């Protein structure tokens, strides 16, 4: 048996004190962490349960946005009337993830901080630079059909599995963090890292940091947004490719756009190049395709995942067409 300590924090202060212990980890819904404990991938000395912190509100902000508590359950967030009306892609993304039972338990911060589902990462009998630095990345030559096409490195070709984070990245969400040095804010699109030479680091957070909220800014065009998730079976599968998009069209011309991709990189991939290409372009399938190409020309597919380039392109075009073509 590998014993570990368990402590239930009741406020931010006690949570930060507890996480300062050696090899301590925060426990939210546990829908990924507990699996990884069972698999031996995660071996914390202490779990600090943060689900009793008063972080379960969804509140309007003075700027007209929404502040989502880190402990808000995925199913609660998906059902929130404000979210459904003003950020439909976020509700759709949440509902496309996992199963009803898991969504009832998974938290907002936990969803953001879940680990990759790369098969090698999850199997302690196999090498993996993310789990065991320096051991190698067998996925590069082995099974990578569902791994990254953008931003990967020699060290790691894993993808980030979250659907929710893709929609949040598209909407310029900001992550509120408190740590030993105080509070700070991180744009969601900057929260997750590319693997580079340190694939064991998923995010820019320090080990003593606690995510307390995610703030959605006011974004009028988000009320006309969509999340499209492509997968082999109809439910309960991570995305091959996903697209979160919002479009503002005026008399046939794209005024503004938000676009993010899931299933293609080590982080939710905000498609800034595609957005740039869309602004001022006619709202047509042709310009949607050109925008997709502007983003995807930087793709570096591996031996068996080149299909994701065509899949992402088609899905971007289909989603934008549905929104405003």
């Amino acid at each position, binding site marked *: 048996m590998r014993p570990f300590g368990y402590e239930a924090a009741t406020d931010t202060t006690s949570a930060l004190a507890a996480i300062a212990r050696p090899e301590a980890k925060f426990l939210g819904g546990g829908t990924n962490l507990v699996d990884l404990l069972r698999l031996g991938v995660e071996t914390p000395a202490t779990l600090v349960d943060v689900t009793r912190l008063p972080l379960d509100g969804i509140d309007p902000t003075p700027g007209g946005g929404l502040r989502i508590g880190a402990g808000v359950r995925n199913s609660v967030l998906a059902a929130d009337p404000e979210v459904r009306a003003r950020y439909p892609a976020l509700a759709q993304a949440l509902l496309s993830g996992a199963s009803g039972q898991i969504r009832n338990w998974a938290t907002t911060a936990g969803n953001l901080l879940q680990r990759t*589902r790369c*098969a090698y990462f999850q199997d302690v009998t196999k090498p993996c630079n993310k789990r065991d630095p320096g051991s190698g990345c067998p996925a590069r030559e082995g099974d990578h059909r569902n791994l990254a096409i953008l931003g990967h490195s020699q060290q790691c070709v894993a993808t980030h599995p979250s659907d929710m984070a893709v929609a949040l990245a598209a909407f310029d969400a900001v992550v509120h963090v408190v740590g030993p040095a105080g509070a700070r804010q991180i744009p969601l699109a900057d929260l997750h890292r590319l693997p580079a030479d340190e694939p064991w680091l998923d995010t820019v957070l320090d080990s003593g940091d606690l995510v307390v909220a995610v703030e959605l800014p006011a974004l009028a065009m988000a009320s006309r947004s969509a999340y499209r998730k492509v997968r082999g079976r109809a439910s309960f599968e991570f995305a091959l490719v996903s697209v979160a998009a919002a479009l503002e069209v005026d008399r046939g011309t794209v005024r503004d756009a938000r676009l993010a991709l899931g299933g293609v990189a080590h982080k939710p991939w905000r498609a800034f190049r595609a957005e740039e290409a869309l602004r001022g372009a006619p709202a047509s399938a042709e310009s949607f395709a050109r925008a997709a190409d502007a983003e995807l020309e930087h793709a570096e597919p591996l031996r068996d995942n080149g299909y994701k380039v065509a899949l992402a392109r088609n899905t971007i075009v289909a989603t934008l067409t549905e929104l405003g073509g």
Partner: protein
Amino acid sequence: MSVTEQVLGGPVDRIEGGDKVQGQAKYAFEYEVENVAYASLVVSPAAKGTIRAIDTTNALAAPGVLAVLTHESAPELAEKDGELGVLQSPRIAYRGQIVGAAIAESLEGAREAARLVRIEIDEEEHDVVLRSDHPGLYKPDQINPSNVTDTEDGDVEAALRSAAVTIDATYSTPPEHNNPMEPHATIAVWDGEGLTLYDSDQGPYSYRGIVAKRLGLEPQQVRVIATHVGGGFGSKGLPRPHVIVAALAAKHVGRPVKLAVTRQQMFTLTGYRTPTIQRLQLGAEPDGRLVAIAHDVVEQTSTLQEFAEQTALATRMMYASPSRRTTHRLVRLDVPTPSWMRAPGECPGMYALESALDELAIELGLDPVELRVRNEPEIDPATGNRFSTRNLVGCLREGAERFGWADRDPTPGTRRDGRWLVGTGVASSTYPARRPPSTARARREGDGTYTIELAAVDIGTGARTVLTQIAADALEVPLDRVRVRIGDSAFGQASVAGGSMGTSSWGAAVVKACRMLRAGGDEVTADTSEEAEAAGQEPLSKHSFGAQFVEVRVDADTGEIRVPRMLGVFACGRILNAKTGRSQFIGGMTMGVSMALLEETIVDPQLGAFVNHDLAMYHVPVHADIQEIEALWLDEDDPHVNPMGAKGIGEIGIVGAAAAVANAVHHATGVRVRDLPIRPDKLVGRLAG
């Protein structure tokens, strides 16, 4: 309505259904045994080599650890070869092979101790990839269960040369894993020289003999109890190595030992379907009549023992043709030994044959239902015998009528519903109706009830319920007057729950026992050896048949495939329980969709390992994947198969289903994917926008 008519064939609820939903039905691992210890397996991290050293120091020092068995410390087996020759040698034949077992006071302690065992291996270069040009390909002496490896009738090459239309296509299927819901589990309890196993398996009686032989015991020294089993799909048809480990571990520590295989370990230790590479050549006259069929199969086995899947067997009897060749070639790889899985042989073989037939129909410009009807044989081409009953044409016609096939436009890739491309496909289905012997005991109780005992096993199929119906029918009493006890090798010789022959074999013994009891006495034992042998010598071919119809929708942008509609029509003799029978059929059909679209165990050539090894990564359909699924059956009176007239329905539902899906995908898209599963990555970029 007489009692008899009510009882047999009716939609009788599962007798143990209430127990199961209330958690009262006891599965192997749940038996409470005094003083029990737990075992956890240590498995090889390398695919090939020899163990140089195995260090159990840390494991033995862990709290609550009783022992660690390795090849150095394990008791000697009477037979040391093959998959069941566990812990008898330092040689490693595949990654994940059992190289040790930690035994502790708790399950958690055993798992941790297993993790602490250190193994040093002199690794050798491994080879785990099946390919059709592998230099190690060889011709096995026979294919399963006992068929000739190759057949050749007429001059196939000449017929192909002169045929008006030919098809030459190669189809491949990946390794697939059975994945029953209940993992394989055993509790081994020694009492002196006697061994009792509470086990999750498909054949308590056959397990008894195999386990006894390995351990150097007499069969009567071993008792195997399998009261409730949560699925097997072939993977529990033969004892797996963990059963022997549990027995050795219990012997070694002098206490009962519980051992459950983990889901991850099930991907190496409990069998799987071999990958197949199948070349199909068909030659036909312009009217569709076949003049040549060639089915050449390449598949794998392990270095430990041979398993020769009978992939082209159905091709020998399915359609008429003056010339025909079937061949099977194997290669021994550094992999776990393949085993039985969901209609072994017929399932992968009919995927290829029925896909090729669809390609031929398109080449001929002939309706695929009509093509099959035109090639209906008068007699069994494999044996020259008559069929006891053969209603393939009836199934095709009835299915076509009900599915609305007549209006089908054969042109591929032309029907759209928004972004969806829509298509339909058909395939034939077949499975042999076998009937091995079984024994059964029938007893008249003092209170007007009857007890039937036999070593049958209900792996979730409804066997217990159907046997109760059969007994009530034979005794002409209401169902609630009959109690059927199964799942215990002590009840005597009985067939395994496999090969779609359980009900046929067990039911015949139950009927015989009940008839004997009605003739006199308070307790009788029936043995159907003579009847089974006589039936085997009849010059008749006995098979079930069916037809599968599928509608698919393929997203033109993404290649996502969904199945809105599926219909199977089957002719399997008499259906004994309309409710559990329907479940068997649609369960098999769903597994066929699963095979066509999702199931694949991925091989990593460099690590010599399976990559995906849990249900998060090895996918089967969810409810949302299949909307409308229905199974129907034709009334069929076949007195030759057994006294019930039932041919067995456990496996026919999956046969042909994958081909019907693949054919529908082609009809929808115009793209023919010949290597399963058909996933979005194989379609995207190839579809008409």
